């Protein structure tokens, strides 16, 4: 049990994919213009990551070593396409905003990295704990980025106005440079916190 909690917490903080490992940041920079997008992208990735980790873990003794990467990619691509089609059918307005980034989950290195480095070496229960931790770690990180960008860029939060009429929108926050600025500052802050807690 303790091991499972450890596996889960690992992705949330110690090896947080965005803030600590800085992997899979392409999508996190591109879709984070509104908080709603951050949440949706985070959940979509968590779903794909969890499903593929379970399957990779279950198939770990069957898949021959030499063809493991193509096998992982097929599994990941299948789950991604399922999310893609489901989103298109049931959440068309969300799909319109983040359409291209959903298929790109296939090449998001977090998913393949967890399959290769973790899920293929442990049983399915530990694989789920790790995938949920990593997925939710990714989700909270990009939600935080998108909340900051939405507040300063549009003066809204989840589409609701939070800053008064007199507020001038910081257009740069909605543009790619804004993503890098917010991300850079947050990584810095996280490093500071990590250093503080480590020295105690």
């Amino acid at each position, binding site marked *: 049990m303790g091991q499972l909690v450890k596996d889960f917490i690992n992705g949330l903080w110690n090896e947080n994919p965005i803030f600590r490992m800085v992997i899979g940041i392409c999508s996190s920079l591109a879709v984070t*213009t509104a908080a709603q997008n951050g949440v949706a992208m985070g959940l979509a990735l968590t779903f794909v990551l969890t499903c593929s980790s379970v399957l990779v873990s279950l*198939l770990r003794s*069957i*898949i*021959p070593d*030499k*063809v493991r990467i*193509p*096998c992982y990619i*097929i*599994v990941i*691509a*299948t789950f991604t*396409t*399922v999310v893609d*089609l*489901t989103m*298109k*059918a*049931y959440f*068309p307005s969300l799909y*319109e905003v983040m359409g291209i980034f959903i298929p790109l989950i296939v090449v998001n290195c977090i998913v393949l990295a967890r399959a290769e480095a973790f899920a293929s070496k442990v049983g399915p229960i530990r694989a789920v704990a790790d995938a949920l931790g990593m997925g939710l770690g990714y989700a909270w990180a990009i939600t935080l980025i998108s909340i900051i960008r939405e507040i300063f*860029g*549009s003066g809204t939060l989840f589409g609701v106005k939070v800053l008064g009429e007199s507020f001038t*929108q910081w*257009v740069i926050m*909605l*543009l790619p440079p804004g993503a890098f600025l917010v991300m850079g500052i947050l990584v810095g802050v996280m490093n500071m916190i990590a250093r503080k807690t480590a020295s105690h």
Partner: protein
Amino acid sequence: MNEYMRMIVVLTVISIVAGAALAFTYEATNPKIQEQERQALEQAVMNVIPGTEKMETVEKDGMTFYIGMDGQGNKKGIAFKTTGSGFSGPIEIMVGYDPKEGKLTGIEILSMSETPGLGAKIKEPSFTDQFKGKSVNDEFAPKKDVQVITGATISPTAVANAIKTSLDKVTEIYPVGGDY
């Protein structure tokens, strides 16, 4: 079973299972996706032709027209799609046209990838409303009879040009004052 056979068998089986799963998902979601697309199209036609309650699709001279009608079947106008080339990609526009009056009844931006906060404002009513009631014989010249957006000239110009160019063709098919 030797190693090569095993590789081939495992990869093949995984691919077949994945393919079947995808075929199933596609079949399950496809009707819903088509329905969403049809609804989005219908909504856009209703937005650009006020008073539309039902529509009819007509193919003419290689263009697709959506004829908007009210509940009694009276024609309220024609809608068609056109595409302009914006600052960072194509801008797809739905245009409503009333041949009887020779005027536009409204426009809506269907899709675009312009800069958020600048060019993306072409989507807002403050920009699109100026085309409501505009005569098709107008010049559609930015900064003259088409108001542009501060900090973004390319996107509004692209919209104005796309509408003007398509109107040249559309007014040939459905002349001003003619029947439709």
